[in-house]
């Protein structure tokens, strides 16, 4: 472990590699986390199946690649299909748990996650998959730092998608309706907004965003039926650290998480990468609690 830190200080160029990878992967984390923040903020549902949606998107790209369709083109059908899937899930399950307490939504979506990951496992097997995008790998800084072109492309696609979603939320009528519902569902209903439709649309939009993130993940990283839970935890870490409704916060903490994972993977070893994510979750929650405890008096 100390050796690895020594490498980083002796050859700062490795830091460039880690930072670049952290940013490229963090952008995708931000996408999925934004979806979670949306659902959490608008309908107060904590979706533990978030990561499974991401992995579903990844397998969609995998299937399309099997048919000879390039994964970047697969983005569009993946978004459409995942949107419809999210709408269906809303009609079937989520609709019934909005009124319940939040633990219900956690547990119900966890059961959903179980169903999705096991179905994927039955359909595709437990092997780790990746989708070949056909882009080249570039060497910069005297060949010490490698940058796969696909990572750059996926970063740009990520920014593009995020931009579309943000503009949609700000400008379109549906986006305005979603924000109004988030502020006060009852007032929104009085104003003639069909909140049921808004909820369904929000959940479907979240599934579509996750699906897009999954397609990108499948190109620059790996997918496997059981990797979903880690993605869910990542989204929770980011949203809890940033607070929902705070888009810049989500982006910053997503990049932070990406960097933290890359560094811990390098310094502590790859087997600690997952432990870092869950460890960070606990740290973020406790830190948040410390902030809150200043405002509250408890009988000790």
């Amino acid at each position, binding site marked *: 472990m100390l050796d690895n830190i020594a490498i980083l200080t002796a050859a700062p160029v490795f830091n460039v590699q880690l930072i670049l990878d952290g940013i490229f992967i963090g952008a995708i984390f931000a996408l999925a986390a934004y979806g979670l923040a949306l659902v959490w903020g608008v309908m107060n549902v904590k979706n533990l199946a978030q990561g499974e949606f991401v992995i579903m998107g990844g397998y969609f790209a995998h299937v399309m690649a099997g048919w000879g369709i390039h994964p970047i083109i697969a983005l569009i059908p993946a978004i459409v299909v995942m949107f419809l899937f999210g709408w269906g899930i809303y009609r079937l*399950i989520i609709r019934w748990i909005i009124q319940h307490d939040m633990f219900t939504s*956690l547990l119900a979506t966890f059961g959903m996650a*179980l169903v999705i990951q*096991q179905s994927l496992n039955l359909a595709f097997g437990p092997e780790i998959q990746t989708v070949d995008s056909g882009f080249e790998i570039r060497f910069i800084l005297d060949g010490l730092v490698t940058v796969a072109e696909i990572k750059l492309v996926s970063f740009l696609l990520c920014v593009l998608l995020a931009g579309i979603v943000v503009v949609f939320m700000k400008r379109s009528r549906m986006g305005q309706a979603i924000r109004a519902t988030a502020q006060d569902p009852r007032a929104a209903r009085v104003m003639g907004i069909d909140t049921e439709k808004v909820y369904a649309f929000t959940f479907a939009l979240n599934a579509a965003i996750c699906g897009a993130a999954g397609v990108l993940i499948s190109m620059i990283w790996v997918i496997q039926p059981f990797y979903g839970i880690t993605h869910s935890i990542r989204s929770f870490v980011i949203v809890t650290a940033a607070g929902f409704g705070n888009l810049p916060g989500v982006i910053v903490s997503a990049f932070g998480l990406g960097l933290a994972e890359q560094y811990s993977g390098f310094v502590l070893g790859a087997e600690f990468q997952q*432990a870092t994510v869950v460890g960070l979750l606990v740290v973020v*929650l406790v830190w948040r609690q410390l902030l809150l405890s200043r405002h509250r008096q408890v009988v000790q």
Partner: protein
Amino acid sequence: MNALPNEHRIHLAVLAFGLAAPFIFGAFTFQFTILWIMILFALTWDMMGGQMGYNSLGNIVFFGAGMYICAVVQVGLYYDVGLYTAPDSSISGASFTYQQYFTGLVLGLICAAIGCVLLAFVMSSFLFGLRGPYFAIGTLGIALSAGELMGAWEWVGAGSGIAMPVFPGGVEARSLMFYFIALGAAAATYWFVRWLYSTRYGLAINAIRDDEEKAEAMGVHTKRYKSITWSFSAFFLGISGGLFGNMTGFIEPLEVAFPTVTFGIFMVAMALLGGKGTIWGPVIGATLFHVIKEVTWTYLLGWQWVALGLLIVINVVFFQQGIMGWMQRKWPERFGIQVDASMRKGSERPSDRTSTP
């Protein structure tokens, strides 16, 4: 409270069945042992989730911690643990005499229980400020990271785990012994929670569930109550963990010791299925869940996990009150709940389920 009619007869019947089961259904002794452990799981989860309103997704931590503490004590009494768990160790297959084995087992189970209580106190010091869903997510994170961290700790065998001391007697005696320890542990848990909920302590934790701020304002030391309740459930979970590790004969961090997505979620699902916040609910839920699990495992090979996930979703979304809750609404008089005559005509349920005497 929440009493079933003719409870004493039911107790006697269950106890008689429990004592006779391994001799009548000899082939299923292992399944019955698991069933008692499952009942213990559901009861300990219900202490937190049902009675105190703190829904933990990470109680499995104590199960795994108890398992590891018990194993380390059992091995450590006679050998060097680091050497024993080393992959190319010469003593990894070391045998234990009768006396060594039983001393180790008893001491190990005691240490597991005490160690888990201490762990619960340590964890409660920083986790109990979290409320509602944050508590659930935080405990889930703890459980997931515990498995990962144990998998990286060389001294206790890291990812390849620990081979437990081999039982010095025959196969039959072994399964019977573990069966009766599991039965004893489950029965002890049942009687303990039954007694606990009938005391002022039970009222205090129910007050925390119903409204923590008001309970605080009434002078209930909420933080103390919460830590102590958690350490109660940790006590029994630690024993069950040590027991399960010895029964399996092999400890591995992710699948056996910290199975967050299997046992860790099952205990929640079982308590909810039976009806949380009742005494019989977790028992009935655990039994039913275990039967469903075994049937799907046998007849739906490959699809069993999908079936279980669907069961959890349907249970949580459409049948949240659980079996006991449903029965209390259907026949409130049988549970000693006074129903206003005007209420009975108009609506179908008593106004507030928590106001049961």
